C-alpha cells in the first residue's frame, strides 16, 4: 500500500497576495482586491446592483445614489453607495434586504419625479437602463402629482448629438466622459438645484470627435444621435459583433441592422483595444454603406461614359486583358480597405500570374521594414515607461489610440515625449513636447535624448516608439531615420506603427507588400511611362490619396487598362476601363488586422448592394477564368489556405471569430534594408516648410457619403503663426497664394500659436484648392512661398 503524500512542498506555495481581501455578498464569500469597489466585486460575483452613474471605465462620482447597499458596520447595518465604497477584508454586504429594496424604490421614484415617461416615443425605450431598472427595482407607482419640470427639447448640442433635458437624470456620465476620457469638456452642468442641466456654452457646440460615446453611455434617452433618431426600435434590431475598419486601431463594435439596412454601430469593450469607445467617424460612417451612390453592377467604359454589364462579361474582359498582358506589366494597388481574406486571395492570384508590382499603401505609409523592429501593442505602450511620439496627431488619425494614451498619461502610468512640427492633441499630456521642423526630426530626437533627464527617463522603464507619417509632404525615410535615432539611444525600445487605413497591416502581411522595393510611387511612375498594361485598383483611389497628385494623374492616365474594384465611383475609378462593384463593410465576413498585428473578425450583417461581391470572390473568379487553380471557392477554403501559407496565421487566427479581443499575430520579421542617411535641405528664411497632415473629417469616400459627417470637414486652408501672418501681410481668413516651382494655389489663411514660425500647416484632402499640386514624390520635404493677394 502506497501512501500518497498530498502535502505540497513549501517552495510551491505562492506567497499570500497582500492585496487579496475576502468579502461576503448576500451570504456568499467573494474574493476581491484592495481598492476595488463593492459594485465591481458584486458584478464579478453576478450579484446585480442597480446603477446609473457608475461606469467601469470612468471614475466613480456617486451621483445617482441608485446603487445603495447595506454594509454591516460596528453600529449595525448601514446604507452605503456601492460605487464609492471600496471593499475591506471581512466586509459583509447585502443587496437584497427590505431596507435596500426600499432605498432603491425611493431613489427611482425621485429620479422619475421629473422624468417625462415618454418611453413610447423615446429612442432609448427598450434598451433603457432607467426603464429596465424602474421595472426591476422600482415601486411601480409614483406619489408625485405636481407639474414636472419643462425645458425646450430636443436641442442640438452638436451636428450629431441632440439633448432632451427633461429626460436627463443628471448622472454626470456624458459630462464626465467629455472631461475625463475625451478631454473635450464642452458640456457641463449649468445652473443649480432644481434647474441643474447639462449644457454647452452658448453658441459653442459639443464638437468633440468622441461625442457619439455620450449617446451610447447615456442611461436614459436624454442624448440621441442624429443618424439614429426615430430609425428603429431596439427590439427590431439584429446585431453581430464585428471590428471597425475605418482606421487601423480596430475598435470592437456591434453592427446593428433592421430590414437589411445598417442602422447603428455601438462600441464594445475590448480590453486590449478600445475599452468600449469609438470615434464619431467610425461610429457614424455606416451611412456610407447605405448610400444611394453605391455601385450596384459592373461597369464597362464605352466612349466617355460607363455602361452596366454582367459580371460574366466584365470578368471576361478583365481576364482577357490579364491573359494578353506582357509578363511583368500588371500592377495591383490597394487592398488595405478589405479583409485579410480579400488581400490574401489577390496576393495568391498575383503569385499565380507572376504579378510582382503590388502595394497596399499609396505612398502615404511606412516601408514594411517598420515591422522588423520589436513590435509593441496598445496595452504594452500604455502599461508604463516612456512613449515617444514620432507620429501625426493621433487625435486626428487614430482617435481611440489617442484616448488610450491620454488615459495612461493622465493616470501617470506613462510619460509621453513628443517630437512634432506643431502641437497635437496630446501636447498637453506630454511630459516633454519638442517642436522640430519637418526634415529635422531625427536631429531633434538625437538632441533631446542627449538631455540627462530624458536619458534617465528612458532608462527607467520600457520605451515605446509610436511612429508614423506626421507630414505627408515629408519622405517616409525621414520618419524611419527618427525611429533609428531613438533606437540608437534606447536599443530595447519597441515600435507601434501608425498606419492609417483599416487593414493596411493585414494586406501588407498576407502578400500585398511591395516586392523588390517597387512601391506605389514606383508603380505609378512605371504606369506613367507606359510600362503598365493593366492596373488593378483594389479599393484604392490614388488620385485622391497619393500626396503627389501629378504622379497619380500621370500614372492612371498612362496605364493602358485600368480595373477598379470599389464601392463607389471614386476619382480614380472614373478613369477605369472596367469598374467592379465591391461588397462594403458589414456586407462580408472575414478577418482584419489592426496596427498591432491583432487579428479579429468582421462580419456580414446585410446583403451586399446590387450584385456587388467581396474582393476575394472576384480574385477567385479571375483565377478560374485565367486557368489558375488557387484551390479556394469558399471563405473557409481561403481561411484554410491562409492559415497554411501565411506565417503567424494558423490555428490561432482561425478561432478569432469567437474571440472578442482577437489574437496578436507575431509575423516573421521582414528584412530591413539599410537606410541611406537622408537629410532634408535647409529652408530659405522667406519660405515656409509645408506640413501636410490629416484631419479626422476629410474628403474620404466613406465620410463624404455619410450625410451626418459630410459637412464636418473644415475645408482647405493654410495655417501659420500669427507673426508669420503679419509678415505675409494678410488678414486672418483672407486668401493667399501658396506656391513653389511646381505649381501655385490660392487658399484662405489662418493663424495659430500652436504652429511654430516658418511652418505652414495644410490639412490633407479637404474640400477646396488641392495643395498636392505642389508636391513631387522624391523630394524629401516641400518648401512653399506664401504671398498675400
Amino acid at each position, binding site marked *: 500500500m502506497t501512501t500518497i503524500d498530498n502535502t505540497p512542498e513549501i517552495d510551491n506555495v505562492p506567497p499570500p497576495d497582500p492585496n487579496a481581501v475576502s468579502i461576503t455578498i448576500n451570504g456568499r464569500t467573494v474574493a476581491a482586491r484592495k481598492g476595488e469597489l463593492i459594485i465591481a466585486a458584486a458584478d464579478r460575483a453576478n450579484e446585480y446592483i442597480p446603477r446609473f452613474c457608475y461606469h467601469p471605465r470612468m471614475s466613480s462620482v456617486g451621483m445617482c445614489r441608485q446603487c445603495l447597499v447595506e454594509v454591516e458596520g460596528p453600529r449595525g447595518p448601514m446604507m452605503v453607495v456601492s460605487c464609492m465604497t471600496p471593499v475591506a477584508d471581512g466586509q459583509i454586504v447585502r443587496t437584497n434586504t427590505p431596507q435596500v429594496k426600499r432605498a432603491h424604490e425611493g431613489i427611482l421614484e425621485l429620479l422619475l419625479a421629473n422624468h417625462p415617461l415618454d418611453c413610447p416615443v423615446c429612442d432609448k425605450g427598450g434598451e433603457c437602463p432607467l426603464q429596465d431598472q424602474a421595472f426591476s427595482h422600482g415601486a411601480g407607482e409614483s406619489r408625485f402629482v405636481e407639474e414636472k419640470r419643462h425645458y425646450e427639447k430636443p436641442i442640438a448640442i452638436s451636428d450629431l448629438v441632440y439633448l432632451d433635458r427633461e429626460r436627463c437624470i443628471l448622472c454626470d456620465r456624458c459630462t464626465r466622459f467629455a472631461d475625463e476620457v475625451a478631454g473635450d469638456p*464642452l458640456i*457641463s452642468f449649468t*445652473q*443649480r438645484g432644481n434647474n441643474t442641466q447639462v*449644457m454647452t*456654452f*452658448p*453658441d*459653442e457646440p459639443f464638437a468633440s470627435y468622441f461625442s457619439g460615446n455620450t449617446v451610447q453611455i447615456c442611461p436614459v434617452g436624454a442624448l440621441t444621435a442624429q443618424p439614429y433618431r426615430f430609425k428603429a426600435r431596439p427590439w427590431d434590431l439584429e446585431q453581430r459583433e464585428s471590428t471597425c475598419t475605418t482606421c487601423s486601431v480596430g475598435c470592437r463594435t456591434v453592427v446593428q441592422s433592421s430590414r437589411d439596412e445598417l442602422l447603428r454601430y455601438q462600441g464594445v469593450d475590448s480590453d486590449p483595444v478600445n475599452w468600449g469607445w469609438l470615434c464619431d467617424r467610425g461610429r457614424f460612417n455606416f451611412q456610407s454603406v447605405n448610400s444611394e451612390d453605391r455601385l450596384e453592377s459592373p461597369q464597362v467604359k464605352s466612349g466617355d461614359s460607363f455602361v452596366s454589364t454582367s459580371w460574366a462579361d466584365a470578368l471576361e474582359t478583365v481576364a482577357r486583358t490579364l491573359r494578353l498582358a506582357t509578363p511583368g506589366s500588371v500592377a495591383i494597388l490597394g487592398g488595405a480597405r478589405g479583409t485579410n481574406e480579400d488581400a490574401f486571395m489577390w496576393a495568391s492570384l498575383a503569385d499565380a500570374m507572376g504579378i510582382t508590382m503590388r502595394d497596399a499603401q499609396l505612398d502615404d505609409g511606412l516601408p514594411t521594414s517598420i515591422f522588423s523592429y520589436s513590435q509593441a501593442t496598445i496595452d504594452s505602450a500604455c502599461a508604463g515607461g516612456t512613449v515617444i511620439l514620432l507620429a501625426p496627431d493621433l487625435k486626428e488619425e487614430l482617435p481611440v489610440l489617442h484616448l488610450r494614451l491620454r488615459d495612461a498619461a493622465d493616470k501617470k502610468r506613462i510619460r509621453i515625449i513628443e517630437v512634432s512640427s506643431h502641437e497635437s492633441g496630446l501636447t498637453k499630456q506630454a511630459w516633454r513636447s519638442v517642436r522640430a521642423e519637418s526634415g529635422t526630426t531625427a536631429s531633434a530626437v538625437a538632441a533631446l535624448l542627449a538631455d540627462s533627464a530624458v536619458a534617465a527617463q528612458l532608462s527607467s522603464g520600457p520605451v515605446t516608439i509610436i511612429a508614423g507619417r506626421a507630414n505627408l509632404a515629408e519622405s517616409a525615410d525621414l520618419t524611419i531615420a527618427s525611429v533609428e535615432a531613438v533606437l540608437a539611444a534606447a536599443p530595447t525600445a519597441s515600435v507601434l506603427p501608425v498606419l492609417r487605413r483599416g487593414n493596411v497591416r493585414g494586406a501588407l502581411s498576407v502578400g500585398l507588400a511591395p516586392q523588390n522595393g517597387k512601391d506605389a510611387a514606383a508603380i505609378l511612375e512605371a504606369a506613367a511611362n507606359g510600362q503598365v498594361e493593366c492596373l488593378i485598383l483594389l479599393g484604392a483611389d490614388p488620385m485622391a490619396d497619393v500626396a503627389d497628385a501629378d504622379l497619380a494623374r500621370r500614372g492612371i492616365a498612362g496605364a493602358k487598362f485600368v480595373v477598379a474594384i470599389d464601392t463607389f465611383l471614386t476619382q480614380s475609378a472614373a478613369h477605369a476601363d472596367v469598374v467592379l462593384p465591391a461588397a462594403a463593410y458589414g456586407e462580408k465576413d472575414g478577418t482584419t488586422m489592426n496596427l498591432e498585428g491583432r487579428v479579429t473578425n468582421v462580419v456580414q450583417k446585410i446583403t451586399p448592394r446590387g450584385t456587388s461581391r467581396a474582393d476575394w470572390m472576384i480574385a477567385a473568379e479571375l483565377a478560374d477564368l485565367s486557368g489558375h487553380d488557387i484551390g479556394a471557392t469558399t471563405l473557409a477554403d481561403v481561411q484554410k489556405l491562409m492559415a497554411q501559407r501565411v506565417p503567424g496565421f494558423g490555428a490561432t487566427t482561425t478561432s478569432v471569430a469567437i474571440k472578442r479581443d482577437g489574437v496578436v499575430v507575431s509575423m516573421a520579421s521582414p528584412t530591413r534594408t539599410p537606410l541611406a542617411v537622408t537629410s532634408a535641405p535647409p529652408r530659405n528664411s522667406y519660405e515656409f516648410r509645408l506640413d501636410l497632415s490629416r484631419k479626422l473629417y476629410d474628403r474620404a469616400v466613406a465620410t463624404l457619403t455619410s450625410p451626418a459627417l459630410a459637412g464636418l470637414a473644415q475645408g482647405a486652408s493654410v495655417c501659420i503663426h500669427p507673426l508669420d501672418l503679419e509678415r505675409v501681410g494678410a488678414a486672418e481668413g483672407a486668401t493667399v497664394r501658396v506656391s513653389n516651382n511646381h505649381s501655385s494655389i490660392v487658399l484662405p489663411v489662418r493663424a495659430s500659436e500652436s504652429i511654430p514660425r516658418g511652418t505652414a500647416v495644410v490639412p490633407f484632402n479637404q474640400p477646396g484648392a488641392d495643395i498636392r499640386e505642389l508636391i513631387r514624390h522624391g523630394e524629401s520635404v516641400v518648401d512653399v512661398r506664401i504671398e498675400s493677394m
Partner: protein
Amino acid sequence: MARLTEENIRLAREIISRYPKPRSATIPLLHLAQEQDGFVTNEAMEHIGQLVGATSAEVYGTASFYEMFKFEPVGKYLINICGTMSCALMGSEELMHHAESRLGIHMGGTTADGLITLERAECQAACTEAPCLQVNYRYRFRVTAENFDTLVDQLQSGALEGEIPAHGTVAAVRQHIPADKGVGAVAPEDVTEGPAWLDGKAAL
C-alpha cells in the same frame, strides 16, 4: 462689453498667480468681469477660460451655479428684497408690491433708464431686522414703504454715489497682496507640513 480690458488682464494675472492651479482663480475673475461690464458677458467667460486653461463651458458651468453672477444686463443698482419667512411675516410681500408700483416694473425687471433692477431674494440673515433688502448687497433694515421711496429718491438723485458703488463692484477697496506678503502658490501635493495652528499634531 467684451473681453477683459488690458488693466483687468493685468489684475487677472496677479489673481491667478495667487493659486497653485490657474483654474482656482475662475470665480475671482468672474467677479472682475462682472465689475467691468455690470454683468458677465459670454466674451468675458471665453476670455477667462483662456486665461485659466478651461473651456468656456466649464467657466459657464461654474458661473451659472451662483445667483450673484448675472448673464443679462442689470441696473446700476440691484435691489434684493428678502422674501423668506421672517421678512414675509413682517410685510415683505407688501413691500414688494409697493416697490413694483413705485418703479413701474415687475420683480426681476429693470427700470427703463437702466438704473434699478428689482429682485426677490432668499434669506439675507437679518431676520431680527425684517423686512430687509439689499442695494448692491448693502443692507437696509426694517424697510417701510416710506423708507423705500426715500431710498429710490436718493439713488435717482445720485446722493448715494459714494456709499454704494455700481453693481458688480465687489469692494470699494481692491484687494492687493504684495508678492512678498503672499504665501505663494504651493501645489497641494507639495505641502508637507501641517498648518501652524495644528502645532505639530496630526489633523483630525
